[in-house]
């Protein structure tokens, strides 16, 4: 059983273990891991000052909220003085001179970074197979084919695998179309994507600016709440950062629900799903009904358009966001006789297949003659999707869906892009609407692989969302399965 942040803090406080010993323990495990969940591990020497200061605070009896907790950080967050690659060749030699807003908050709260987690290149992927540093392996195995290496999901596959295998207490990931929730589901852990605008995007390598959100991957809902407390803050330097008043998300997380809760289950999401997936929903229903939760059928009008909308808008924004990677001011520069050659060679050789593909899609849907039919149309449909959710939220407090349409599949299995994109079918709509979503592990498939369920809340209602997720987590008792 993995320890929670609170339990670890207690052990540190009670001197059962020191901050340094704790770090050593996780680092040894990380170094011997075979999942390739880290692009970079930080030796103790890199962190020795922080470790010592953290220890001092424990001894003085005034530890910070995440003091001494070893965290993994997805290699998409710019970490000052620490190589940040976005799992891409083109940034494989890049060391930022600035710290992202979110990771700075984690440092301010005393956490210690054990390393940079592997991920899909530029966060583009659902299986962590596009990384320049090689694929990540899911620590879980299909009990019927235990020799198969399975995907952990993506793009935050490294983060999910690391948390699942216990090489960090929690990891900071990003979610654009499901990149926190989907790998969390496939690795049997918790993954939270906050409301768009909750957590600053400043210093995060941008993929799709109107969709990217930072969020925690953790072993428990409570741990997710604790990390959310740290990172969920307004940032003036991010124009899309929301200025609403934040709350403490961990206080009262295990309290009884004080009112009747209504949860909608989209019937169209459950059409044609496997028995395994269906049972996750059924078990969740059973678990929560006894707590004064009512379940109703709801129906979206826009489900069949969500993936198309996403796969127009996200690549479009990405094609523009990735234009800055040219080998001129930073990153890997390839040889070239002319300046144009340098651009062409650096970019072509620096980006992998999937990134190249998405840049091309993006350039296409924004180009003259196609902008109205694709990009503009997708933006309009996005509004329809947002309105669709609001219509449903008029009636219900939360929406419950499976997180993924399938369990973890074999590395190399899904070569066709579109079949890969369909992994995101349950997570993408939430992203398009900007709503908060959390995935918790709900059970095992017939192959013994973890499956997750997703709760979707209304804008900025993370506190309530975490409460219902914590309740479901308790009742479903995944860790005992």
């Amino acid at each position, binding site marked *: 059983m993995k320890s929670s942040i609170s339990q670890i803090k207690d052990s540190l406080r009670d001197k059962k273990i020191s901050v340094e010993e704790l770090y050593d323990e996780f680092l040894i495990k990380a170094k011997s891991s075979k999942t390739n969940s880290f692009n970079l591990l930080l030796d103790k020497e890199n962190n020795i000052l922080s470790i010592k200061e953290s220890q001092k605070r424990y001894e003085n009896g005034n530890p910070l909220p995440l003091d001494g907790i070893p965290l993994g950080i997805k290699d998409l*967050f*710019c970490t000052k003085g620490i190589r*940040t690659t*976005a799992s891409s060749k083109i*940034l494989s030699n*890049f060391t*930022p*001179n*600035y710290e*992202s807003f979110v990771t700075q908050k984690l440092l301010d709260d005393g956490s210690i970074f054990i390393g940079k987690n592997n991920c899909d290149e530029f966060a583009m992927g659902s299986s962590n197979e596009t990384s320049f540093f090689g694929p990540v392996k899911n620590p879980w195995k299909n009990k019927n084919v235990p020799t198969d290496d399975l995907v952990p999901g993506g793009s935050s596959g490294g983060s999910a695998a690391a948390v699942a295998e216990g090489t960090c207490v929690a990891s900071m990931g990003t979610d654009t179309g499901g990149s926190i929730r989907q790998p969390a589901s496939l690795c049997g852990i918790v993954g939270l994507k906050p409301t768009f605008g909750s957590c600053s*995007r*400043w*210093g*995060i*390598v*941008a993929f*799709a*600016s*109107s969709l990217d959100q930072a969020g925690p991957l953790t072993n428990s809902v409570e741990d997710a709440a604790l990390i959310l407390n740290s990172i969920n803050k307004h940032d*003036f*330097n*991010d*124009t*899309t950062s929301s200025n609403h008043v934040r709350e403490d998300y961990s206080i009262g997380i295990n309290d009884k629900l004080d009112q009747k809760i209504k949860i909608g289950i989209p019937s169209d999401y459950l059409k044609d799903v496997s028995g395994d997936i269906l049972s996750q929903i059924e078990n969740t229903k059973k678990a929560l009904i006894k707590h004064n939760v009512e379940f109703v059928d709801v129906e979206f009008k826009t489900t069949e358009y969500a993936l198309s909308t996403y796969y127009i808008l996200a690549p*479009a*924004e990405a*094609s*523009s966001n*990735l*234009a*800055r990677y*040219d080998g*001129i*001011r*930073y990153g890997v520069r390839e040889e070239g006789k002319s*300046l144009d050659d340098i*651009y062409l060679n650096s970019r072509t050789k620096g980006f992998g297949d999937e990134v190249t593909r998405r840049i091309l899609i993006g*350039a296409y849907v*924004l*180009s*003259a003659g196609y*902008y109205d039919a694709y*990009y503009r149309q997708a933006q309009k449909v996005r509004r329809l999707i947002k309105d669709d959710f609001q219509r449903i939220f008029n009636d219900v407090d939360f929406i419950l869906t499976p997180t993924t349409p399938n369990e973890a599949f074999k590395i190399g299995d899904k070569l066709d892009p579109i079949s890969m994109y369909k992994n995101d079918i349950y997570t993408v709509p939430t992203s398009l609407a900007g709503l908060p979503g959390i995935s918790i592990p709900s059970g095992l498939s017939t192959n013994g692989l973890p499956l997750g369920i997703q709760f979707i809340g209304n804008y900025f209602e993370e506190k309530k969302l975490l409460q219902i997720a914590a309740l479901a987590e308790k009742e479903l008792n995944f860790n005992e399965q």
Partner: protein
Amino acid sequence: MSNNWEMVIGLEVHAQLNTSSKLFSSSPNQFGSEPNENVNFIDSGMPGMLPVMNFACIEMAIKTGFALNFNINKYSVFERKNYFYPDLPQGYQISQFEFPILTEGFINIDNEGNQKKIRIERAHLEQDAGKSIHDIDPKFSFIDLNRVGTPLLEIVSYPDLSSAEEVVSYMSSLRQVLMYIDVCDGNMQEGSLRADVNLSVRKKGGELGTRCEIKNLNSFKFIRQAIEYEFKRQIDVIESGGKIEQNTMLFDTSTGETRAMRSKEFSHDYRYFPDPDLLPVNLTQDQIDKVKTSVGELPQAKLDKFIKDYNVDKDIAKIITVEKQNAILFEKMISETDVKPKFIAAWLVGDIFAFIKENNLEVSSLNEKTKEITDLLKLVSDDVISNKAGKEILPKVLNGQGKPSDIVKELGLEQVSDSGELEKIIDEALIGEEENISKFQGGSDRVLGYFVGKCLKATKGKGNPKLINKILLERLKK
């Protein structure tokens, strides 16, 4: 070359705004700094960086909206213009496309007495790019990003201009207005104001031709040269049976010729889309009204006022209003004395400007000396001293050598304006001049000058020449 060709020109003027910091980053907006001194991570397009808008740029755009008779659009959107160039770190320029902040304005230009209204289609805010230095080394270019992100207002006219002179007149009027409202410093050598000229030719009354764009002209001289050259070039092409290709041209300042930029394999497609890192601008009426109060009096209004209310000559009024600091000096002087503005104006554009030019001063440096200047002018206008004496004293006053009245006393320059005294002198001077007197009465005006000179000499130059003239005439007519 047949004579019934005419040119059709539209101008895109880029004006750098006079803010302290850049449009989307808080780096300094300064010219002439050390390379890459004014560059932060946002400007250099580093991973994860985000833009934050400088509201002063919006205010300057609104001011310009009032000054150039634009519709000020409450809703406007920043969009990304995507293309690759080494001086464009993000790989896109943040600009405005579908929803610019200003639309449908105009300015009246005065081209050698002919008034013409030049309609302006739109003006929008955008980032400036960096600079590449190509001529230091044969094999390499060097990139300085200081200018990246400097706020620009791009002002796009309708193709209402039909000659190089009109273009220069338009651009200098724009420049004047922008400087008056403190939106741009108008320094063309430093690149504060640049123009792209779009020129096509057509037979008089014929259809519009294909236009070519000549980029980045930063002096009136080059604008004139480029237009003249391009006009001829296009006519030559057409008259020899060719077709004009829509090209982007550069003007070679050393040869005086335009040439097409290296042709690209595919045409530009900027793939504009709203910048997802920014929110649309939504101005309130309050915000717009607040800016209106800071616009101040515009050059045309000042010109009209000087001519109508102050009775100043049109040409002199033009000189005074050409630069705001001239007008400020003038208006300050008027407010401090009862000397007629027309009188002050003449002295200003004459001896005072001459002094300024000779001594390489800023016009505004005289603002602290207006009391002394107007005191001096009053002495002249009241006939206490002669015009000539005034001119003599002026430099001393401007050099801070003392108060005018003191200097006059010191140098003994008071005029003799006592009619009685002068009459005596004049009568004396006329003694023995019967021959000249009859010459005058016979119609010779030159003799008058001779007599005035003789009297002035008799007064050792202190006689009031006007009065002498007057009294002489009275005497001579008898």
